[in-house]
């Protein structure tokens, strides 16, 4: 086991796959010579050369479109969109073209491509560089969607995404880039569509994603220690495919579901999970489902405002305590 930062683990995942398969290519803005604006792709240009690691103009439609064209003709591109907010600039390529082409052509066209993007809040960048938009992607049939919360997961899920024959979007939470964690030595490939139970408890099942996972874990420790509330914490990891078996089983054990989402309130991913649990696990529930989300506002930038907008450890503790009373 080596200790890597989340950003180093991203580069390690890409490098592992480029080493294995020379059809894997990587493109994006400032990703090659500069090593990425978040330094998550440092060293790839030096290691794999300018033919495989390519800097692009600020042209998100061209980047994603080129990835699509390359994927349908035999390459396995990884395209970076610098901030997930910029997916809106190329949403036609993502939602209308990449997501639908396999289906519309009745399987004639295969699109083994990966879109990686820095997602979410915590950097005081304001409403156009801080959104958590994984729910946008989740709403479009034909896209696989993962959002890893640890260095090990981001390496393994990037690798799994590259090996998957379908388009996968990897949402990397930008506040996690500096976080360190153990990453297995040697080849590490994870599985899409698998949630992880990180902590087992008796009273309540907390389902979280990406940055909300470490916060949910911290909240669970406080709830246990200071309030005697014992929580299971599930890291969803993959929104599409969704590991409903694990989520339903863990909710059934505690009888309570709390989702912790960075998405704004309306149609955040937790709403879908709440709906599935209500449909399929209703008689195991001992109380109402609780969704802890960002309020339905664009994200403000000032320290105090941003911190108070996305779910914090203190807020998770408070809301679970109130609802569990």
């Amino acid at each position, binding site marked *: 086991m080596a200790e890597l930062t989340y950003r180093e683990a991203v580069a390690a995942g890409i490098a592992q796959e480029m080493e294995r398969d020379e059809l894997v290519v990587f493109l994006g803005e400032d990703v090659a010579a500069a090593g990425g604006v978040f330094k998550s792709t440092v060293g790839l240009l030096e290691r794999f050369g300018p033919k495989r690691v390519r800097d692009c103009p600020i042209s998100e439609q061209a980047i994603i479109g080129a990835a699509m064209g*390359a994927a349908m*003709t035999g390459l396995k591109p990884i395209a970076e969109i610098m901030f997930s907010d910029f997916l809106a600039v190329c949403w036609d390529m993502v939602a209308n073209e990449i997501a639908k*082409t396999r289906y519309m052509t009745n399987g004639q066209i295969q699109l083994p491509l990966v879109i990686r993007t820095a997602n979410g809040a915590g950097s005081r960048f304001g409403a156009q560089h801080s959104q958590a938009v994984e729910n946008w992607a989740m709403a479009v049939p034909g896209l696989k969607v993962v959002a890893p919360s640890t260095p090990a997961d981001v390496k393994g899920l990037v690798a799994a995404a590259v090996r998957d024959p379908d388009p996968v979007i990897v949402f990397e939470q930008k506040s996690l880039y500096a976080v360190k964690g153990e990453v297995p030595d040697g080849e590490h490939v994870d599985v899409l569509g698998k949630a992880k139970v990180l902590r087992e408890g008796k009273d309540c099942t907390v389902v979280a994603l990406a940055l909300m996972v470490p916060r949910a874990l911290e909240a669970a420790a406080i709830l246990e220690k200071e309030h005697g509330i014992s929580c299971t914490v599930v890291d969803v990891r993959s929104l599409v495919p969704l590991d409903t078996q694990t989520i339903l089983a863990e909710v059934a054990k505690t009888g309570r579901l709390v989702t912790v989402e960075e998405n704004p309130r309306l149609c955040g991913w937790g709403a879908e999970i709440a709906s599935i649990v209500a449909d399929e696990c209703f008689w195991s529930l001992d109380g109402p489902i609780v969704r802890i989300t960002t309020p339905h506002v664009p994200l403000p930038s000032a320290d105090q405002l941003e911190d108070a907008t996305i779910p914090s450890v203190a807020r998770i503790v408070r809301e679970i305590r109130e609802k569990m009373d």
Partner: protein
Amino acid sequence: MDAKAKGKKAGAADDIGRETRLELYRLQVELRHCEKRAHDLFLQNLVKGTSHLSLGQEAIAAAFGVAMRPDDWTFCTYRGHAHTLARGASMSGVLGELMGRECGLLGGKGGSMHLTDVSKGAMGSYAIIGAHLPVAAGAAWSAQYRGTEQVAVCFFGDGTTNIGAFHEALNFAAVWKLPVVYVCENNLYMEYTPIASVTAVEKPAADRAAAYGLESVVVDGNDADEVYRTAVKYMERARKGGGPALIEAVTYRHSGHSRADPAKYRPEGELEKWLERDPLKIYRARLLKLGVAEATLKDIEDESMRKVDEATAIAKASPPPALEAIEKNVWADGGAAWRN
């Protein structure tokens, strides 16, 4: 001296051989007959949804179809019946798809605007303006990366030159020197609005070429020989590493934008003027002048009609798609599961 200049000097343009010319004619006739049949089937309520016909623009699709290598790639728009057929896609597959039948190229899941036949290098018809220009660049990148000398050809209308993806793709392809040939079919109308009234330059594609360091190329899109020579020239250049081209082929659509459009916005006499310049009419006259027998042309026309009739019969006899198709082929495993 380029092919075009040579052709002009030769007067009769005999740089294009007889067999190629007959193939160019055959293809134009087939595209015309098939589009007319699509229109008839629509009037019989057998073609649903929308359809965008290439009537009057056949010379462009045909000339590139003949000029392309079998492993080259075509990317076209929702006005893509002709481009798809020109690569050799099955006519019953095209008509069947328009009619929503099981025998359709896409099994009834795409419709008129998404015709695709990967086995023939027809890499899709794209219904969002501009979207396929970056996609074609990506395919060209793949060819360049793997050193296959394949070329991507990307057809689009004049209206596309005013959307962002056009400019992103042209710059991207030029900077990476990609083997892609962009072909703007300027039929003078974006949809219902004259392109000239919404565009800052006179030639919507060619006048923008300089912005990407590309040559300004305008060709008579109703003259299959002219288009063929231009296609050969720029495709070969791209194949040899010379980078992309942007060709503006000036043409005219005989019908409206889509089936819903009677094209009443056209000034009086304009259609008639362009009917005089009908690509099939021009080409037929040229072949006769070059000594091709009337009977040979008649045979091509009869055979084309027979082929269209046969394709129509196959499509009409094909059942609607099975409902199981709805949840098939979202994913590479053939299914549509989003959960376990």
